[in-house]
């Protein structure tokens, strides 16, 4: 119901707007940048590096934030610099600087080698890199229709204020915050393994949150634009998301939440729609199948993984039912992790992480492949290397990790109709999961009681808690191809010092039998 309305209005808005016709030009390689890259690689090799790569990046960011009828922040940023990564004495070294001059790239390259040599004294197992084919002159650009940095700021502000006004027309809606964020990453990469690529990567994030206040009783409830995904697209996605056309509906739901029935804790069948389920996939499948976590490399912060060690997991760990297939890729059009080559210079693969409910692979980078080769026979990286910026060293980050749709052509409505006593959950809410990804708790944006195959009313204070594999093995119905949708997260943290990554997760709606639901309004009462 909500979803169909959204798709309808989004489609209408897209049709109403004429975008300037655009032929996406391939990103250009600056001859002087290419020269400086080669200079850095040569300096590293002369100083004793057995391998080196260099990333030169110019990143533009823009953010517009509003509340009610005023702007709260308007910012535009640009950062430019380069980072050189080397292997010397079998150890990694990395140094970066904002001054892209011949002298500085050579200094930084030598500094990185000296650092690697210092690190090699505390090394036990020299790093080995999986082979990757040369790329003479690679070019890639996100499939955008309109560059958001070409759109006047007035148009962006006007769109947000119009959305805010629509939300505030709803009686009981008191506060509204909305924002747009854009990123354009222009990245040149070169390595001593004969890879040279130039990429232009875009991301955008439209958001709105409306709060209804019940001052008499001291309560407040919020609803955000959960159905609007962040995407690796341009301004066209903002228009399609149609915040102004949807704001009133979100405001009405915030108001309705004030008087919604507080959930009775207990076991329910949960029907999770894609804009909610993507985050459950992100936390409980995508993170535990990162190879660095499984091997202990992230033990001090992000954590380890229950899906470890690999020799006891691959081909053995049943994660969910036979119809559960989880794909890793960096190629779905418009997805946040899409790219031509990763930060190892590898063209990413599309592959299965979970096949027929059983774990068959992990996410990998070039320096991780050797750990798995004896188990999988694979000798190349899946292309999961990423660094947040020129100033950060690259490491393994998740690709898009998606639950593939089922063979039967089921929709959300079919799942609801088949459910006797359930809760239908819309949108991402509060979430928390342990450091090995065994146990989690998720809230949502809006919750509906399902009785006898029908939605019978709104609920609030809902959160569900489960053990990862119990939860996924309780999945008994999923939607078909038609019901598959993508959502994602603009900033997923990992690593130390922390780095942010953007990633998409696609899935159909799915049903989970007999899941433990808490009441968060009563201090997390247990079911």
């Amino acid at each position, binding site marked *: 119901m909500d979803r169909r309305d959204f798709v309808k209005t989004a489609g209408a808005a897209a049709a109403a707007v004429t975008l300037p016709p655009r032929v996406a030009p391939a990103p250009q390689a600056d001859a002087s940048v290419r020269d400086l890259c080669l200079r850095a690689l040569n300096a590293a090799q002369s100083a004793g590096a057995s391998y080196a790569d260099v990333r030169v990046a110019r990143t533009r960011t823009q953010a517009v934030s509003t509340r009610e009828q005023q702007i709260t922040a308007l910012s535009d940023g640009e950062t430019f610099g380069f980072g050189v990564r080397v292997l010397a004495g079998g150890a990694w070294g990395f140094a970066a600087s904002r001054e892209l001059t011949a002298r500085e790239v050579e200094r930084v390259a030598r500094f990185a080698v000296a650092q690697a040599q210092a690190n090699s004294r505390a090394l036990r197992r020299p790093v080995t890199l999986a082979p990757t084919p040369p790329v003479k002159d690679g070019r890639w650009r996100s499939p955008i229709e309109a560059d958001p940095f070409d759109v006047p700021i007035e148009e962006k502000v006007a769109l947000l204020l119009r959305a805010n006004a629509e939300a505030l027309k709803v009686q009981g809606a008191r506060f509204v915050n909305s924002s747009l964020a854009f990123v354009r990453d222009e990245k040149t990469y070169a390595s001593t393994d004969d890879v040279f690529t130039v990429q232009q990567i875009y991301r955008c994030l439209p958001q709105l949150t409306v709060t209804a206040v019940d001052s008499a009783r001291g309560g407040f409830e919020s609803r955000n634009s959960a159905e609007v995904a962040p995407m690796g697209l341009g301004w066209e996605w903002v228009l399609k998301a149609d915040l102004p056309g949807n704001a009133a509906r979100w405001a009405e739901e915030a108001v309705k939440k004030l008087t919604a029935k507080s959930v009775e804790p207990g076991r329910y069948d949960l029907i999770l729609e894609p804009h909610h389920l993507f985050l459950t996939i992100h936390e409980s499948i995508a993170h535990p199948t990162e190879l660095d976590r499984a091997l202990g490399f992230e033990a001090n912060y992000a954590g380890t993984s229950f899906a470890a060690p690999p020799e006891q997991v691959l081909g053995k760990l049943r994660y969910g039912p036979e119809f559960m297939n989880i794909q890793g890729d960096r190629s779905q059009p418009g997805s946040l992790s899409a790219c031509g080559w990763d930060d190892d210079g590898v063209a990413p693969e599309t592959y299965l992480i979970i096949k027929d409910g059983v774990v068959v692979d992990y996410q990998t980078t070039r320096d991780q492949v050797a750990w798995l080769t004896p188990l999988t026979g694979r000798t190349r990286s899946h292309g999961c290397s990423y660094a947040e910026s020129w100033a950060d060293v690259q490491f393994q980050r998740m690709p898009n990790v998606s639950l593939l749709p089922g063979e039967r052509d089921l929709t959300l409505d079919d799942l609801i109709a088949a459910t006797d006593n359930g809760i239908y959950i819309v949108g991402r809410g509060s979430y928390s999961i342990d450091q090995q990804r065994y146990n989690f708790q998720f809230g949502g944006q809006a919750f509906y009681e399902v009785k006898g195959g029908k939605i019978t009313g709104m609920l609030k204070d809902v959160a569900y808690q489960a053990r990862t594999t119990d939860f996924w093995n309780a999945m008994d119905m999923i939607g078909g191809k038609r019901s598959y949708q993508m959502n994602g997260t603009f900033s997923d943290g990992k690593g130390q*010092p922390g780095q942010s990554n953007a990633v998409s997760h696609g899935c159909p709606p799915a049903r989970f039998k007999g899941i433990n639901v808490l009441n968060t309004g009563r201090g997390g009462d247990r079911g």
Partner: protein
Amino acid sequence: MAEWLSRAEARQLAERTLGFSKSDGCQVTISSGVNGNTRYARNEVTTAGDTVNAGVTVTSRFGKRAASVSTNLLDDAGLRRAVEASERLARLAPENPELMPLLPAHVYTAVPAFSGATADLDAARRAAAVQAVTGAADRAGLVAAGLVHRVAGAGAVANSAGLFAYHASTTAVHTLTVRTADGKGSGWAGTAHNDWGRATGAAALAERAVRKAQGTREPATLEPGKYTVVLEPTAAGNLLGLLAFALNARAADEGRSFFSKRGGGNRIGETVVDPRVTLASDPQDPDLLTSPYTGEGLPVARTVWIENGILKHLAYDRFWAEKQGVAPTPFAGGFRVMGGTATLDELVAGVDRGLLVTRFWYIRPVDQRTLLYTGITRDGVFLIERGKVTGAVRNFRFNESPVVMLNNLVALGRPERISASESGDVGGAAVVVPPLVVRDFSFTSVSEAV
């Protein structure tokens, strides 16, 4: 250019930037410095990085219209482009009725937050700290992972009304996790300070984490429920920070906060927690040493937010302060919760039956009305019986509010500076907190995670 800007260099960069300004008012925020880290896992160094960077953020204004542009291209062309871009954006921006005038010049009290020992923590010295930990873990047959991270730099803010503020600082953090090879036991230790020389040494940290890893191998499973807990300073700080950063006047006045009064207004003057609780911030506190000014150059003074359990102040930004007819009260970059003199062991000795918690993790809001949060325990939960630690127990998920926790306070110990960021790096606030004993702490499920 040096790795970070001196006061004279920062002033010169600010003046050069302001010189390009054609707006009614212009503010320049400058950052500069080095960021160095060494990571380790599986008892060896994994990656490291040293980055040198500097940048400016230019905010131009025309009347009530304002916009910001940031860049790290600091030659005249780059600065001119940033100023012009911010002016272009500002002209386009609608009026912001909440925009306050630029602050005038002010003489700030300098904070001695820069430590030579931290600035000198290069790759070789970091690798030596790593080896002290990995060696200890290896000798004990355990596996260590961790991070040595330091930043050294200087920032400034200047505006066309004549204000100039400069602050140089360093911060070092070392956090580490030691696990048993079979993954059945895990222990954590961490330290943070402006001065690497005053941070806990690598050997002492390793000893603490090794002991915890060895002690958590065979945990008992206890039923979830309400327990008396002894929270180590890190665990206490993980939750107290949530309270500190909720001390916002506007959210309270607007009915969006735990500190909102029913029917309107806020709860300043009311007793909100146990009378033994006092929470203050002070840039000059020798264990906090945070910036003496805010992002717009407003001086930051010592402020007691909660005194003897009574809410004394909430943070007012300049706009909200003027609207409410009070003085602006900025929050500082850190806080201290006062405590007593008892050591952690002495607190444990006073508990008949309870749980000792090392730290919390993945803490997320559940309900802002009550400041209810969820998260899990990590790297060591121990059963206390008749004043002694008698064994390890499995991790729990909690659903608890720091306000409820501080109303169920049993005892406070001796405060210390902790590594407060969940991510274990130099990010986040400077935090000094005591270990706490709290009754009826709410654990809602058992986690199998180690």
